[in-house]
């Protein structure tokens, strides 16, 4: 049946397209890889949206809708619960961006390296392997951005108590891409260092502490109250968590009146995280695809 595939048709077909070597440039390949990832995102939007919304929605729903209704005190009730809803918006946006790094970059990479090897065709595209890694970060950042856009209305509209937002556009427009790139780089680093067997560890040991200690539910400065021998140990410890800077940054971008870390510190440390994680991610990526 198929044995004569090529032979039969060759006489009637037009000549095959010529080679593309002359035009196969690295920037064109990079753009095409991005186009591929955006296409896949668009195709999977039906799964992407529920997957992205669920956790932030539940978080906001339980903490800022159910709790005030049942009289459970988070943030002190009354005026306090309104303030809590407001400060949670920033945390939830930061959280969903970080989760995209894990869900859209790290987990697919773990699968591709571990079982399917399907990334190989992209690794063989005519661009340096490190660019393929960077493309993963950028694609992850784009998904983080979409996630933030999807989650923001949820966090702003679901709470039972009013949310008082005050947007500082210059901060929002610079911090969001920085946070998205950092989380893409975080995803690349994790995705190249975990394998299918150790993925449960990734969630148990890395993602959980990252989120619970990411200044999502509380402003970072409030941790000063947690002391041992007079030393605010928790406030210092969580400084190793990039999510803290994102939450605090979005707090600065979206609210007034909630205390936050100084903006220069947020920008500097986040940029530092982005640089180090990108470097680690590229290194890990190269190690996984080139032997």
């Amino acid at each position: 049946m198929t044995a004569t595939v090529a032979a039969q048709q060759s006489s009637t077909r037009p000549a095959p397209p010529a080679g593309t070597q002359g035009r196969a440039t690295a920037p064109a390949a990079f753009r095409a890889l991005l186009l591929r990832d955006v296409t896949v995102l668009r195709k999977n939007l039906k799964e992407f949206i529920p997957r992205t919304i669920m956790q932030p929605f539940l978080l906001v729903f339980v903490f800022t809708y159910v709790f005030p209704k049942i009289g459970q005190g988070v943030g002190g009730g009354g005026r306090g619960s309104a303030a809590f809803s407001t400060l949670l918006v920033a945390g939830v946006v930061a959280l969903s961006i970080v989760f995209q790094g894990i869900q859209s970059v790290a987990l697919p990479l773990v699968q591709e390296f571990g079982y399917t090897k399907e990334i190989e065709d992209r690794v063989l595209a005519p661009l340096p392997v490190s660019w393929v890694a960077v493309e993963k970060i950028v694609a992850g950042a784009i998904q983080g951005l979409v996630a933030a856009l999807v989650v923001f209305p949820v966090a702003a509209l679901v709470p039972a108590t009013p949310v008082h937002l005050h947007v500082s556009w210059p901060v929002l427009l610079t911090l969001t891409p920085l946070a998205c790139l950092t989380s893409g780089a975080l995803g690349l680093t994790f995705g190249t260092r975990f394998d299918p067997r150790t993925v449960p560890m990734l969630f148990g040991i890395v993602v959980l502490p990252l989120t619970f200690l990411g200044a999502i539910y509380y402003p970072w400065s409030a941790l000063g109250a947690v002391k041992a021998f007079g030393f605010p140990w928790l406030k210092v410890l969580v400084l190793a968590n990039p999510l803290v800077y994102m939450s605090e940054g979005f707090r600065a971008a979206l609210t007034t009146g909630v205390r936050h870390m100084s903006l220069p510190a947020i920008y500097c440390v986040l940029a530092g995280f982005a640089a180090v994680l990108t470097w680690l991610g590229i290194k890990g990526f190269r190690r996984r695809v080139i032997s």
Partner: protein
Amino acid sequence: MSQSAAPARPSPAEAPAPTDQVVIATEALTKVYPGNILAVDHLDLSVDQGEIFGLLGPNGAGKTTTEGMLTTRVLPTEGRAFVGGIDVVAEPARAKRVIGVVPQTNTLDRALSVWENLYFHGRYFGMGAKEARAAADYRLEQFRLADRASSPVTALSGGMAQRLMVARAILHGPAILFLDEPTAGLDPQSRLALWEIMGELHRGGQTIMLSTHHMEEADRLCDRVAIMDHGRILALDSPHGLKQSLGADTEVVVSADGPPERLASHLQARLGELRPGSDVRVVDDKVRVALRGVEGALPLILSLCEQGGLTVRDLSVTEPTLETVFISLTGKDLRE
């Protein structure tokens, strides 16, 4: 660019050095994996434009590592390698422009449809949207996958997936097509279909490097075959030349009661006098005898066995194959 352009041959701008026709060259190419595992040992190779070149050897011979180094996925420990005149270590991104790769495992993009796998591959290699669409349509038609265009790749049979991988690998008109065990695990019909495709590509002037442990595949398709074992080339010639080099034109496989070693040493001793140059080996509990002259070969072996008091259980005679060559070089079966 349109579909009516020249056939899929390397464009002159990126083609190998103008003075010769060599498109793959290696110099003392060596790979030592961590743990001091020597996979490829000072390999010197040269493949000409338009050739189908076979790397034949058992698993672990170093075929995949060799192709891995030539396709930029494995970094050589030592030595150099060139594809289309480009140093694969110094300029991997440029080298990737001139190669098409069909790896051993299914690496189709599962997030994309059959058609999209080809379309995006074209885009990776610098094609515009219109051009990539035309190229994808063209190749799907050529490889008889057009009716599967919008299927997910996970719905393809093994043979169809492999055809799609080949279609994808040649989509951008690479100067060299690398195939790593392309028919392993395929049913006989799909295997034949793929051989047919490779033959057609070959007639169109496509240079192909093919690794296989399937001797019939190497025999049928390849212009030249390098027999590899333990990371080294043991022999390199056309399939015909390799078989000629045996100095034998007949292979008799015989098994008898008792230990095969006894049978082998008996035959070895007697044939040494009667048919000098015969090669006797124990492979897979059977004795393989390579000798010259098919005439009288079976009666001779039978009578020798009888004289030695050995009861023959099974006896067959064939022409020598590349496997015979491999056995005479290594003393072991290709499938081991």
